[in-house]
């Protein structure tokens, strides 16, 4: 028989898995080896929420203590969330093939390096996504362009960012061209999240999309040329669940770390490492440089440029980030910033 948690073979009669240490549930008869590559018989059970015995540490959903994965976000509940001494929580361990539920639909997250979100859409459910993340779909699933008000008129790597929508029933799967992690963010009613642009993978049809200017910029001057840089992007995506809960899927490069900032607490992060923040979290630029240098901002190209995040609320960062453009240039003007000289 096999361990429910990690899939390792367990010796008959053993109570714990030798590979991961989780308790083994004994079945009446061990199932025979599953036939390879055969689709499992499909009968999605309704999500039964028993007396809430525990809470998912990642998304806060109340869940039955007997199950192994949070049905809202797929986090493995029997694994201790890794939290660094400084307070960053790693994205919770997720069992390969973990299954999430939204509406009457399901999403399975498959793979380790470049995970795939494999959606099984119920007839009444839909998802929307940027068209370049589509990996495969059933021929029956219809794809249409979303009618959007101006907001999607933004550019992704010089190409128009087209938002497409898929309506159930059927299977459709998404992945991004980047080794990293897939971040399921269940949104509770009236919850919103600000996401740095281009990290969005897919969202359920109920999730509303809006965008704001970040208001974070600096200008560099070289001769007579002035260039404006947006270290966290010119725009930030805002996803909200109005009345019904929704599921938002993001993809970030490398590993993902989250922390909950108490009111007034600050943290400085690399601007391009930001993944998301609660709307209550404020942000602005922060410069650091040695005091021995000339007083002008422009003189020293080796300054540090930070993004200051101020609580209350959650913030998430990724360990792989793009190079910050213009950081070493002569900065002539900038949005509100603080400065520290050593």
């Amino acid at each position, binding site marked *: 028989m096999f361990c429910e948690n990690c899939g390792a*073979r367990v010796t008959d009669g053993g109570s714990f898995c030798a590979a991961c240490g989780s308790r083994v549930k004994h079945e009446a008869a061990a199932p025979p080896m599953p036939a390879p590559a055969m689709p499992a018989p499909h009968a999605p059970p309704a999500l039964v929420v028993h007396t809430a015995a525990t809470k998912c540490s990642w998304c806060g959903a109340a869940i039955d203590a007997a199950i192994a994965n949070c049905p809202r976000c797929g986090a493995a509940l029997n694994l201790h969330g890794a939290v660094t001494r400084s307070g960053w929580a790693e994205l919770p361990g997720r069992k390969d093939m973990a299954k999430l539920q939204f509406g009457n639909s399901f999403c399975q997250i498959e793979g380790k390096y470049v995970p795939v979100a494999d959606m099984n859409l119920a007839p009444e459910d839909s998802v929307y996504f940027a068209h370049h993340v589509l990996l495969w779909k059933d021929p029956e699933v219809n794809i249409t362009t979303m009618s959007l008000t101006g907001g999607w008129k933004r550019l992704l790597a010089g190409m128009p960012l087209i938002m497409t929508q898929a309506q159930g029933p059927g299977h459709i799967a998404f992945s991004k061209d980047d080794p990293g992690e897939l971040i399921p963010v269940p949104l509770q009613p009236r919850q919103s999240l600000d996401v740095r642009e281009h990290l969005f993978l897919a969202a359920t049809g109920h999730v509303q999309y809006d965008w704001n200017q970040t208001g974070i910029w600096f200008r560099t001057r070289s001769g007579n040329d002035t260039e404006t840089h947006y270290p966290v992007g010119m725009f930030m995506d805002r996803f909200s669940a109005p009345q019904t809960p929704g599921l938002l899927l993001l993809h970030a490069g490398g590993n993902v770390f989250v922390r909950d900032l108490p009111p007034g607490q600050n943290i400085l992060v690399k601007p391009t490492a930001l993944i998301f923040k609660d709307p209550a979290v404020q942000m602005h630029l922060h410069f650091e440089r040695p005091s021995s240098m000339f007083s002008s901002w422009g003189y020293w190209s080796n300054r540090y440029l930070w993004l200051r995040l101020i609580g209350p609320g959650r913030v998430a960062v990724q360990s792989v980030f793009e190079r910050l453009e213009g950081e070493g240039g002569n900065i002539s003007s900038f949005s509100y910033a603080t400065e520290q000289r050593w």
Partner: protein
Amino acid sequence: MTDATHIPAGESLERLQCQWCQSMNEKAALACRACGAPLDIRNLVSESGWREAPRIRDMTEIHFSSSTCQVEGEIVPAAEINLGPGDSIFFEHHVMLWKDENVPMTILQLAGGMKRAFAGMPFIISVATGPGRIAFSRDATGELVVLPLHPGMELDVREHAFLLCSHQIGYSFVRIKGLTNILFGGQGMYMDRFITTGAPGLLILHGYGNVFERQLRPGESIMVEPGAFLYKDSSVTMQVEFQKLGTGFFGGTNMSLARMTGPGRVGIQSMYVHHRSE
């Protein structure tokens, strides 16, 4: 020992069948002798029927003919081949990682003399002959897909995705005409074709990201992003279809998807980095 499925006389017949390549293994084995798949871990099959390529444990050894292949590393795994005398393997020049100095190399003679170049070098298939060691890897995070080929098998593989192939297998490539102008800005797209002759052989691919395989029933179709296609049985047909996306607002962009129709296996990768022939 030339055949992984061969059972020596006098041994216990209690055997374990590898769920990835169907080879028989000793009951106590932890990894399949022929493809390296862990035997003590259950298959991961999604509800939609995609099966994850087995994650080969670091340092697993795979046996073919009188040679072995050790799989090293997990993020960008390297395949280190210890070639037995008389065994040879063929590969593309861009996947070579290191070799013993005295391993002889030759060029595989290809029929047709088609003009095909890759990364500024003429497209050539090199052959290394044992005894000696030679190792291969590719340029991005991914998984090794080990496909022992049995007589009668015919496999089509995305161009430049194969890492190495043992000499018993016949190699050719086909130009996909239909896809040409649509997908890759007018550049040709080739597909490598591997055909077994009389003897079994070993084919190792490198897929970007994670690799999934699905068995299509006769007539069953699946729409796949063309960049995600990794391999298929030659019995599976592949046709590109478009969907016009967008209103006049965006000027209209086409999205192309490959319709793959069974019967046979289809392998996909969850990330793609397209390298094309020139």
